[in-house]
């Protein structure tokens, strides 16, 4: 079995289960239709095939012997996408190049699904100098796991505050500056509540961008944070001399839960109080589209979102210039939460070399510039600093579009949302008890005590 590729192993597993009691499959048998020697068939996971079509076409023109099948996998959030990817694994039919966001980067790396890119990056370091020079160290750090790089990146989103300028104007308010505070936020939310049935602030119960930004600015996190050792090779090679890279290690770790620490309780009490005071509508479960609908309908004054809303709000019918963004308000800190997305290579899929060649094409500036989620409208924030331009974001009417990248450059302590290997189950626990606190069935302290107990159990089971 030593020479079995991962694809073959997974297929053999799936088939082996089918004949569970029956027999082990012969080690050398692949259930996949084997590609011909000349033609290479690759399966590439994307959110939306249209957004990557140009990249695929240009690559296949350069490499006529390669056929890339783009597999569209969508979900309410990135955890849901991951469950679908895992389903393809269970079926023994995984993708060769996957696409993951921070929420599941460590899951794929920790379970050995994604191939470490370290040796390839070292071999081709020259080709990547420009790529990483154009990308913030804080973003690159999220792609490391235990000292190795597992993903490249093309887009990210930090949770900033979005403002409905129609409601802002009706309340007689101006856009706040970068240094605004939680108290400023509170009075603005009060002022924007009640205008034609509107609420000053709205959020939904999920992991990224729910009450997580309040957790971060209250200088805490749902899990303890630490940096793994290692990664010097990466920082020394690609970020030598970059002050913002100093002190970064081999990737983030979340060694234990701390859901019920006093700062967590304080943050949850704050958001629950907003609901109790009627400044926030009932907090329901859902994805970003739920908020998008209410915000574009002038029912919400402020809400957490990232650069993806710049184009998203235009697409949902808002006039350019009718909304804007700003840093998250300062509380005990102004540390933001972020999530970063990019491709990874299936380890043991048998086509890693070709996949790496494809990723080298993918990371080119001109290729990323033409990605459909940046052009014609920015539906997310490019990780390449140079692609965050007036030309791109100006058409959306977002005056403070620089905030998207400044969040990382000017607030370098900004970090990823927690992403341990068991993040999908962690998310379920997080949203379950958040819901019980926001609907008043448990006090914030009770909900977080229960959340902590379940997370401790989760950690114990995965120790």
């Amino acid at each position, binding site marked *: 079995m030593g020479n079995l590729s991962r694809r073959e192993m997974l297929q053999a597993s799936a088939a082996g289960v089918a004949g*569970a009691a029956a027999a082990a499959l012969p080690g050398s048998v692949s259930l996949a239709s084997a590609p011909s020697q000349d033609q290479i068939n690759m399966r590439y996971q994307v959110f939306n095939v249209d957004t990557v079509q140009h990249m695929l076409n240009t690559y296949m023109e350069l490499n006529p012997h390669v056929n890339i099948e783009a597999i569209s996998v969508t979900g309410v959030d990135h955890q849901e996408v991951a469950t679908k990817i895992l389903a393809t*694994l269970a079926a023994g039919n995984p993708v060769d190049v996957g696409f993951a966001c921070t929420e599941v980067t460590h899951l794929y790396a920790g379970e050995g699904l994604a191939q470490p890119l370290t040796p390839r990056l070292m071999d081709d370091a020259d080709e990547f100098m420009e790529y990483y020079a154009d990308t913030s160290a804080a973003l690159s750090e999220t792609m490391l796991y235990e000292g190795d790089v597992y993903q490249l990146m093309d887009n990210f989103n930090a949770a900033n505050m979005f403002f409905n300028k129609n409601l802002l104007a009706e309340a007689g308010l101006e856009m706040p500056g970068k240094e605004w505070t939680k108290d400023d936020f509170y009075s603005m939310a009060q002022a924007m509540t009640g205008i034609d049935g509107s609420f000053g602030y709205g959020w939904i119960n999920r992991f990224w961008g729910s009450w997580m930004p309040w957790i971060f600015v209250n200088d805490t996190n749902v899990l303890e944070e630490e940096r793994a050792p290692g990664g010097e090779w990466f920082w020394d090679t690609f970020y030598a001399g970059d002050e913002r890279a100093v002190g970064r290690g081999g990737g983030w770790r979340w060694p234990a839960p701390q859901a019920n620490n006093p700062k967590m309780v304080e943050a949850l009490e704050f958001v629950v109080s907003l609901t109790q005071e009627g400044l926030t509508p009932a907090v329901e479960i859902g994805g970003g589209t739920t908020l998008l609908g209410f915000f574009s309908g002038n029912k919400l004054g402020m809400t957490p979102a990232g650069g993806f809303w710049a184009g998203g709000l235009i697409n949902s019918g808002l006039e350019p210039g009718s909304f804007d963004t700003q840093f998250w308000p300062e509380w005990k800190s102004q540390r933001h939460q972020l999530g970063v997305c990019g491709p990874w290579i299936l380890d043991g899929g048998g086509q890693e070399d070709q996949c790496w060649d494809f990723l080298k094409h993918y990371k080119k500036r001109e290729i990323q510039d033409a990605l459909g989620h940046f052009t014609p409208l920015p539906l997310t924030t490019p990780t390449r600093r140079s692609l965050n331009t007036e030309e791109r974001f100006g058409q959306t009417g977002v005056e403070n579009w620089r905030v998207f990248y400044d969040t990382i450059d000017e607030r370098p302590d900004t970090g990823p949302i927690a992403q341990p290997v*068991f993040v999908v189950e962690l998310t379920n626990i997080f949203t379950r008890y958040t819901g019980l606190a926001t609907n008043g069935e448990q006090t914030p302290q009770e909900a977080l005590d229960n959340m902590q107990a379940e997370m401790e159990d989760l950690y114990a089971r995965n120790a």
Partner: protein
Amino acid sequence: MASETTLGSGRRNWLPAWLAGDTVQGIRRQRMVLGVLFLLPTLIGLIVFVLAPIVVAVALGFMKWNVFRPPEFIGLKNFARLFQHELVGNSFSNTFVMMAMTVGMLEVFAISLALSVHRFARSRLAYIFRTVWFLPVLLSGVSVAVTLSYLFHTDFGVVNYYLGVLGIDKVPWLVSSDIVRFSVSLATVWRNLGFTFIIYLGGVSALPQEILEAATVDGARGLKRLWLITLPLLSPTILFATVIDVIRLLQFFDEPYVMTRGGPGDSSRTTVMMVYDTAFANLEFGYASSISVILFLIILAVTGFQFLLSKRWVFYQ
């Protein structure tokens, strides 16, 4: 072979001797082979899409498997664990409560609708009613659930808006543990009513008119006729519809998953959601299979119980 009756010498050379059509036995064998060949597509489908998945699911129930590594046989550990797992018990309880509410509403509304629409059986209105009531069945469960979750939103939903017009306070349809199961059931009823309605419409159309007319002549009218004559005559259809609905609704998934994700807390988490989360969120495919095996057995038992009880109340002409 010596005892076989020879019918002639019309044997085709390419047929093996035992299939030769010149003996009675050979013709029987030919028919048997032909029969098997005709059945083969169905048999293959049955084995590949029904029997094999069942076998796999049962086998997985005895294993530990997280997709990333090969399955490991662990005996009855998964089953022992699920009987002590509070969340699993809670999900079964939610499933039964929502199934009972939904089936109850479905049968009452569907019978009422079928009896009403049957009155217009000879008019064009019948076509319109049948089409309109069946339309939601054709919609995707997920689309319906997404739409209804907007309608049921506590602060922005249309339902609460109209309740407000009537002077009724906002109802926390999807964010209260006390109400959420009812809300999800209501959404499910809306989407599935057409299917059950069509079953009952067929049943009502087939009711023997002479008995109904005789009952009318004997003075049975209104609710009395409905209770003592129509419903007993309709009882075989009621049995069929409830069996089908109970089986479907014990596998509740689309509506609660999209509308509430099982929340608030776990108050609308159903067993199939539990199976899904256990498999794809927690990566415990073996444990998830053990839960689904128990659900399968429960559905089997409930269906058997329904048929057992039917001897007491179902009236076959």
